[in-house]
């Protein structure tokens, strides 16, 4: 697929939705309460290090992971711990901090000074909690300190529906991004940046030194890091790769140049039900209530932290998660549709041409959360293959997962995939199968067995 260094993704599908984010960047002030959510981290069982009433600085430890005590999770802001909020079975859901008006930071500057070696960088990243931004494939869990990854992959464009424009986002923090890349170079492994080919504004990434640049073309999921890894250097059994988002590289760059842990994010607000879309400069853990209040259409809305394919269904009040950079608001499915399967369906988006909406290719759709039909046994074949640009047989892999056939899962390439890569399969599925859930189950089985 590679031609003149450009990797062309042919299979996939761009879901065009109403409500693209306006290229305006606003500031979202710090809310009174800021929360860290242990549930953001896959396979992390938190052990608390603080309790209500404690004072913390930004970068102070809040909890650690039970089986990997080196993983520390830290406060994004300074203030007083007001509550450790628990859900069912006393599972810790949120650690709430009453944020100080004047922010105080833990000082990492002495240890974060150059020269940066693997050991010194690792120590500061772990101690500050910034290590948790580095994740690994297979499994999408937080990277292991002792692993020797064969590369670090950074996807510099997001192809998901209504995704933020990362060229614009990183342009605001170009120096910190470059500093972050220099820090990561201390690991002495190749760093791969994947860029969207032929778009203006990607110079912000293409000008970075000391990295391998790859250009991609084609529809979603071309921007998924898993798809990019598959085309650049597939993961073989026993191998591990690390990956981060560009905004996390910025945080790491800032940490090592200023000595402060300050997990800032530029978050996009998008979707058909948002009155005024924009980008918001904020910090992980900040409440997003303020940007939604009065800014969404009335009626029954669905709030999504992330994009419409992989995001998390949340309430209108909540906190920005550790890996989030997008909020989407779409209408909830509220009415059943009379003879919906029989009508021409000009307003129905479909990969197939069974509705007459194919007449207008560039139309942007206002989709709601309707399943558009009931779940059925698996009938129609050949659909998933059209939207999964990997050398993987999706249906056979899913069947192996359902049959808990470990050997088959491994042979069919389960180590290369993640839920997000299969999200489009779920979108197009005629039988409305919970595809991502099945993939999750398969990955979980393999993690526990491996």
């Amino acid at each position, binding site marked *: 697929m590679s031609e003149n260094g450009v990797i062309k993704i042919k299979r996939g599908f761009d*879901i065009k939705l109403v409500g693209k984010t306006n290229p305006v960047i606003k500031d979202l002030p710090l809310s009174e309460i800021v929360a860290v959510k242990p549930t953001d981290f896959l396979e992390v069982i938190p052990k608390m290090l603080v309790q209500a009433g404690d004072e913390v600085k930004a970068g102070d430890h809040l909890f650690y992971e039970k089986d990997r005590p080196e993983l520390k999770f830290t406060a994004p802001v300074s203030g007083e711990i007001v509550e450790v909020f628990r859900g069912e079975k006393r599972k810790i859901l949120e650690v709430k901090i009453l944020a100080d008006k004047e922010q105080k930071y833990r000082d990492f500057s002495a240890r974060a000074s150059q020269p940066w070696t693997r050991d010194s960088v690792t120590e500061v990243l772990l101690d500050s909690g910034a290590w948790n931004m580095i994740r690994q494939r297979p499994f999408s869990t937080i990277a292991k300190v002792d692993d020797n990854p064969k590369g670090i992959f950074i996807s510099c464009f997001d192809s998901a529906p209504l995704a933020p424009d990362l060229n614009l986002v990183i342009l605001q923090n170009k120096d910190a991004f470059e500093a972050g890349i220099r820090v990561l170079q201390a690991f002495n492994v190749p760093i791969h940046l994947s860029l969207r080919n032929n778009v203006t504004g990607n110079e912000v990434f293409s000008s970075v030194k000391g990295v391998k640049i790859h250009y991609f073309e084609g529809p979603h999921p071309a921007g998924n890091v898993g798809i990019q890894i598959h085309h650049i250097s597939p993961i*073989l*059994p026993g191998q591990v790769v690390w990956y981060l988002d560009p905004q996390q590289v910025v945080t790491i760059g800032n940490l090592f140049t200023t000595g402060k842990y300050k997990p800032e994010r530029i978050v996009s607000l998008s979707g058909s039900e948002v009155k005024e879309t924009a980008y918001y400069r904020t910090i992980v853990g900040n409440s997003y209530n303020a940007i939604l209040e009065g800014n969404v259409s009335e009626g029954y809305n*669905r709030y*999504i932290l992330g994009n*419409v*394919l*992989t995001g998390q*269904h949340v309430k209108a009040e909540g906190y920005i998660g550790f890996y989030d950079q997008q909020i*989407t608001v*779409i209408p*909830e*499915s*509220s*009415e*059943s*549709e*009379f*003879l*919906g*399967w*029989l009508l021409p*369906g000009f307003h*129905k*988006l*479909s*990969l*197939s041409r*069974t*509705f007459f*909406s194919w007449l207008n290719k560039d139309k942007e759709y206002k*989709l*709601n*959360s*309707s*399943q*558009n*039909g*009931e779940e*059925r*046994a698996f*009938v*129609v*074949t*050949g659909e998933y*293959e059209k939207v999964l640009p990997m050398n993987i*047989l999706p249906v*056979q892999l899913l069947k192996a997962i359902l049959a808990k056939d470990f050997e088959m899962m491994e*042979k*069919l*390439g389960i180590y290369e995939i993640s*839920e997000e890569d299969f999200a489009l399969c*779920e*979108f*197009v599925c*005629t039988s409305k199968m*919970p*595809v*991502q*859930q099945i993939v999750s189950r398969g990955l979980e089985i393999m993690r526990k067995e491996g």
Partner: protein
Amino acid sequence: MKALRSLIDKIKPNFEKGGKLEKFWVVFDGLETFLFVPKHANHNGVHVRDGIDLKRTMFTVIIAMIPALLFGMWNVGYQHYTAYGEASTLMDNFIFGAIKVLPIIIVSYGVGLGIEFLVAGMKGHSINEGYLVTGMLIPLILPVTVPLWMVAFASAFTVIIGKEVFGGTGFNIMNPALLARAFLFFAFPAYMSGEIWVAMDPAKTLVDGYSGATSLVYFDEGASALTSNISTTDMFMGTIKGSIGETSTLAILLGGLYLIYTGVGSWRIMTGVFAGGYLMGLLFNFLAGSAYPGMAVPAHFHLIIGGFAFGAVFMATDPVSAAQTNRGKWIYGLAIGAFTVILRVFNPAYPEAMMLSILFFNVFAPLIDYMVVQRHIKTRLKSAYQ
């Protein structure tokens, strides 16, 4: 529609658990979801979904069958009036055909859906849409003279033995409609071959030299018998004798193109079947000797006689009983096409080979997929260790 919606909402509690008509929940649910696409929202995973569902898919297949159905109705009338040498208009032909064909369709749907509802009620699962297509396929592959009780019998056999014993739509291993056809063929051979293709009227006299033979009968007598009795144009257009929906290659191809364009039917399978039949025909032309007259029949005739086109477009493409991998679909299609021609040529006593060929490779489809998957695994490993 608001009135209808509120009526349904009003009577709904009666059918829900604990209501007095609880037993009829399946029937109610089937009708409700038929009228209204439910507002079920996505829970886990994706928040938006493609507009398509199984109802729409099945509906698209039915639309694709309409050209073959309408032409079939017309042809029933045309064959009837031609047999008696009577002049008839397009409308005459069509009306005569409709009177003959509609009862078959009604019986097929009535019996089949009745049993589907019953089984769904017994098992407590929702009614599947699969029979919407099967119920139309059955009439199209039967001769117009078939007795209605036999249609009822075939429909019942299809639903019970073809599908429900396996667990319903999506779990059957063979194409249900073809299974019905095969069942009738072996159970009632007298009604399934011979002078059965034209609706007769004992009160009238046939034209001189009338023959009720189909293209397949002439085929067995050799190339010259076929070409001297029926023109290629007639075979392609479909003004010939045969099952109700199978005669017009043109009408079937229209449906096939629609299926391919909408993405509902597999172009790999369709192309594979036609290519397999044509290539095998060419090979036989090359090897032609005296022992089997069918060998010398020009290859393209195979594609336009008998049920070849109908089988390729509507039967072989059934996703549940076909191969599931993309490469497997090619192999499966090519094999069906080639095997049909082999059967036709070497077994003159049994003319319609398409049906058995498809059923045969339905059974082998999982094996084809298995081989494709094994090969995929091997190449994956190989490329991984390069």
